[in-house]
């Protein structure tokens, strides 16, 4: 089974791209969707006949939740006899990234999101093998070019692919890269490409009250001028 991690900001077009990808390669694809509180993607995958599992991270950072559950996802994929297992996660904190060494990683960014966005997204884009740019159909050629340049700045070694999440244009090029992905039977002992935060604070463990008295663990204080 091949495995691909797909990450990207909310509404950047991840589900659309995965659906178009599934339509362009003749392989059995299954998806594990990691989300925060709710997910509307299950119905879309169901409609397309793609087996899907949804994991809601609730009070955990979705990326940490991801690391804790991804092995379970791999076993599920193997039991389902998938050719390709895809994980979809929205990197909500922008600090973390679900990309794993040796596993083909995709970051989906949307050209409407502003030309500097690729430089702000962080590890999720910086450590991706492939950066898929969506919604190029509605912005000018010049903005597409500047956007690609901005992606290059943040990640010079990634393959940049333009995919239209609605028409599927460009999805088959992504399919070619997916077919090149390594076959795996387990991801035990592989590593994340980027560290998760070194710190845990009181609020990480459920504290809601505000005030010095309630703050524990590792924390960092801002310095305010004046």
């Amino acid at each position: 089974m091949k495995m691909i991690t797909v990450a990207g900001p909310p509404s950047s077009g991840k589900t659309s791209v995965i659906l178009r990808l599934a339509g362009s390669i003749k392989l059995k694809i299954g998806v594990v969707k990691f989300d925060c509180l709710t997910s509307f993607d299950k119905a879309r995958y169901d409609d397309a006949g793609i087996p899907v599992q949804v994991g809601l991270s609730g009070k955990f950072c979705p990326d940490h939740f991801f690391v804790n559950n991804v092995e379970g996802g791999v076993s599920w994929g193997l039991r389902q006899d998938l050719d390709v297992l895809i994980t979809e996660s929205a990197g909500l904190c922008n600090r973390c990234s679900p990309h794993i060494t040796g596993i083909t990683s995709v970051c989906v960014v949307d050209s409407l999101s502003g030309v500097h966005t690729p430089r702000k997204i962080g590890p999720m884009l910086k450590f991706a093998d492939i950066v898929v740019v969506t919604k190029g159909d509605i912005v000018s050629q010049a903005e597409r070019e500047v956007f690609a340049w901005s992606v290059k700045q943040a990640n010079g070694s990634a393959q940049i692919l333009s995919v239209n999440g609605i028409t599927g244009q460009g999805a088959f090029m992504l399919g070619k890269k997916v077919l090149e992905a390594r076959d795996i039977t387990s991801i035990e002992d592989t590593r994340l490409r980027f560290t998760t935060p070194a710190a845990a604070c009181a609020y990480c463990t459920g504290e809601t009250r505000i005030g010095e008295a309630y703050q524990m663990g590792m924390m960092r204080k801002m310095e305010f001028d004046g």
Partner: protein
Amino acid sequence: MIDFDVIIGARTLESVFAEYPVARDFFLNLNLPPLDEKKPLAEALFDATDDWLLEFGLTRAEIPELFAEFLRTMTATQAARRVGSLTILGGRDKDGAPENIELRVEAGTVISIVGPTGSGKSRLLADIECLAQGDTPTGRRILIDDASIDEEERFRLEGKIVAQLSQNMNFVMDLTVAEFLEMHARSRAVGAAESGDASELINLCFECANSLAGEKFTLDTKVTQLSGGQSRALMIADCAYMSRSAIVLIDEIENAGVDRREAIALLAQSEKIVLISTHDPLLALGADKRVVIKNGGIFKILETSPEEKRSLGEIEKIDRLLYNARRTLREGGRIDNVGDI
């Protein structure tokens, strides 16, 4: 090939920045506090705190390497690929019947694509955009300079040799026309010399866009506030002067309030290969050749004949009449007699 490792090791940051303006972005992207630019990078880095380095998971030794890699990527990205010709090798139509066609298009040529709606005009443009190698629903193959393109080359060229313009495209950046053009110029500049030429290029682009647009706009207009016609005019001028792409695909830009013929002439004159899918007779006949699509396949390729060029003159008159009628109405006039407008 420029050896950036040597440059970075030997020269002060100041002099690297002067030659490669894009180099500054490397430090901005990493949110590095200002370094002493009078020193070479390795030396300047002694001022950065360990805390900062840790935050980004970086080591002092690693930064010059990453910086060199950044400069290599950013300068290599810009190298334009010249394209002398594009060839379309026929595939099959929607029923699987072979097209039996070979169309070679040279730089500076304009081809129009006509056919009923749903016939496959946009599909043909899509085949060119992805440099199809028999792997799209049409089975067509695209050659560049008479050679097929292997997989690696195709991925390398992705997004680099084909520019697109369509009716659905809008500007989304919150920038003025001047800032917008500067930004585009900056993104394509390799070294300082080119950045220097940018202001000339920007003016050229701006003036040309204004001559294509019905209503004039200024350099300090926000691009998002341009009218449909003005936006289209700016996109076309930008494509002609700023975009490095050698092939321009246009999907329906008619009725946009721009001087369409002049726009197409401008693109052709910039030695680009231009393909326009259109239902507009002016654009169809204004091209050197037109491809007729039927049921998903290339059905005919017609050279625009001298007779057709004459007919084009007649159609232009009608077009001008319509244009003037529109203007008269816009300005609050009456059209009591068509002969008067």
